[in-house]
Structures are given as structure tokens and as C-alpha cells.
């Protein structure tokens, strides 16, 4: 597998280092010639000096035969253009962009970037999972189907305490996957009763997330 990494900041540096170590064929494209020299000393001949948003640079890098192009510069506009050029001019099958402004994740997907990685969102979601009094946590977004996997804890004052699954009205297209009760994992049926302290794992449409939160947590 041939992987082109664009942007030799900290992310690009460690990414290249790891990929080389794992035996992939990697090329790192970096604008700053001084950085290129240092990296070449460390990684060997896998560093190229140039602007990854220039088609000539991508052509010289052999983008036409690359399986993946990963753009991890600190500028969203550069990462977008590099991925789009890779896709449209060089027919690269998979493009991955670092997104610095969380608001751009959705935009990049609409504009054809396959995968976006947003350090801000990653750190935020880690914080959410770590904060004990958060009652509703977004665990995973499944982007193709616009689905989300969420975890909610049933508070003692919640109106669903003591009611059964069949008793409550879940938002449209929402399924309960599991209820974690102490060390037990319960696969819920209509007769399963909710108890205070239950951890509910559910899958839902992203637009129904708020409604589900209201039902399970704040009602």
C-alpha cells in the first residue's frame, strides 16, 4: 500500500514515522526545505519538498498510484484542496483530511473527503466520556447512515424508572442495544424494566439524539 502524507508538522511527522515503522510505502510532502532535510536524516528517502496543493508536486510524488492521501497541515483550506485534487485529478481512492475547525467536518464530507480527523472533537468526546456526571454521552457517529451510538445513565428522578421498554415511546428509528446494570449486560426486550443507575446503550438517528436525551435523562 502506498500512502502519501502532506504536511510535516507534529501530526505528519509522527504519522510518517509510525507508517514507515509499520512497513508501509510512505512519502511525506513538506513545504519547508529545512524540515525536509532533518526528516530525511531520520526516516531516509521518504520526504519530498514541495507544496502538496500543487498538482505538479502530487504528480512528482506519484499520486496516480497512491492508495491513500492523508492531508494533515494546520490549514483546513489546504487540507480540503489537497484531498480534492488527489481525488479528482489523480483518482486516489481514499482521502483523509485533518480538520482543525470542528465545524468543517460535515462540509468536508459533503465535498467528497472520505474521512476527517478532528483533534478538537476527539479530545472533547474523550472529556465527555470521562466526566462522571454526564448522563448522556455520544459514543460513536456512523456517518454514512447519519446514525449515532449513545450511552445514557438513568437518573433516580427520571420518569422512565420502573417503566418497561414497551411502556416508553422511543424517538423514531431508535433501538436500545443493551442495558448495563452493575456487572450484568441485559439485551432489552419489551418487558425489561428500567432501574435507576442503568446505563443504556442505544443507536439512533443523529437528529433524534436530543429527543432521546430528553426521554432518558431529563424527563
Amino acid at each position, binding site marked *: 500500500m502506498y500512502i502519501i502524507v502532506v504536511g510535516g508538522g507534529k501530526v505528519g511527522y509522527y504519522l510518517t514515522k509510525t507508517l514507515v515503522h509499520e512497513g508501509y510505502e510512505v512519502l511525506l510532502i513538506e513545504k519547508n526545505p529545512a524540515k525536509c532535510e532533518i526528516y530525511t536524516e531520520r526516516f531516509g528517502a521518504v520526504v519530498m519538498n514541495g507544496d502538496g496543493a500543487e*498538482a505538479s508536486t502530487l504528480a512528482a510524488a506519484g499520486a496516480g498510484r497512491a492508495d491513500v492521501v492523508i492531508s494533515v497541515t494546520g*490549514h*483546513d*483550506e489546504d487540507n480540503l*484542496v489537497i484531498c480534492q*485534487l488527489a481525488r479528482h485529478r489523480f483518482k486516489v481512492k481514499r482521502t483523509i483530511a485533518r480538520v482543525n475547525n470542528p*465545524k468543517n467536518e460535515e462540509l468536508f464530507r*459533503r465535498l467528497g473527503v472520505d474521512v476527517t480527523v478532528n483533534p478538537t472533537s476527539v479530545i472533547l468526546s474523550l472529556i465527555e466520556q470521562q466526566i462522571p456526571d454526564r448522563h448522556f454521552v455520544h459514543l460513536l457517529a456512523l456517518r454514512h447512515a447519519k446514525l449515532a451510538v449513545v450511552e445514557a445513565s438513568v437518573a433516580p428522578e427520571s420518569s422512565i424508572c420502573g417503566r418497561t421498554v414497551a411502556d416508553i415511546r422511543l424517538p423514531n428509528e431508535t433501538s436500545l442495544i443493551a442495558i448495563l446494570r452493575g456487572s450484568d449486560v441485559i439485551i432489552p426486550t419489551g418487558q425489561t424494566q428500567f432501574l435507576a443507575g442503568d446505563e443504556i446503550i442505544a443507536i439512533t438517528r443523529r437528529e433524534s439524539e436530543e429527543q432521546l436525551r430528553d426521554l432518558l435523562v431529563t424527563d
Partner: protein
Amino acid sequence: MDGTLVNVVIVGCGRVGARIAATLDQAGHRVSVVDINSASFRRLPQDFAGKAIVGTGIDEDVLKSADIEDADAFFAVTNGDNTNIMTAQIAQTVFEIPTVVARIYDPVREDTYRRMGIHTVCPTTTIASLMLSAIQGNN
């Protein structure tokens, strides 16, 4: 423009952006100009009646404060090709502005995005061919 007044957003207040802004403003159109550097607005005429917004054109919130939601036309004329490409795509896909024009200096990038359906202007090829036509005219 057939005499009707339009709402226009311009991203980039360099020589070109400021000139487009001043021309449209004088003709009575509603103009908003966005630039990351407030000093760029010195290029606008004293009597400029439009909005001048400090911020980056690749941020939807900045564009909203420039009234992009009511815009009929959008010009991306910063000095960065990639910024122009991204802001133009935001205007086109997110805000569905009917007329979106982006300046792209790099002819290869210009060609790529023109094929992808963006209305582009490439100063490099345009100016080069004007220069060349001056010699050809002498022959």
C-alpha cells in the same frame, strides 16, 4: 445585472476585491466585504456604504455575519487559491448562492475546479494571453 439591485458578498479586500466592492456599492447594490485584516478596508472608498467584516471567509459564522444567506452573488478574491476554493464551495454547497466566482492563480487548480462546476477566473492564463496578444498584434 439588468438594473435590479443585488446583494453581494466579497471575500478578500485586496485591490480586486475593493474595486468590485466600490463599483457595486456606487451602483447602489448591497455589498459586504470580508477580510482577515482590518487594515485592508483602507482600500474601500470613504463613502462606502456596505458592510466590512473582519474574519476568515472559510468560517460559516463569519459569512453569515456578512449576510451571505441573502446574497445573490459571491466573489472569492483573497490572495490564497485554497482559501478562495474553499470559501467558494461553502457559498455554493452550504448557502446555495446562485452566482459564485473564485479567483484561482494556479492554472491546474483552476482547471480542476472549473471541471467540478465552479465558476473560476484564472489571472495567470488571462494576463499571459493578453500579454502575448500584444506581441501577436505587432506582427
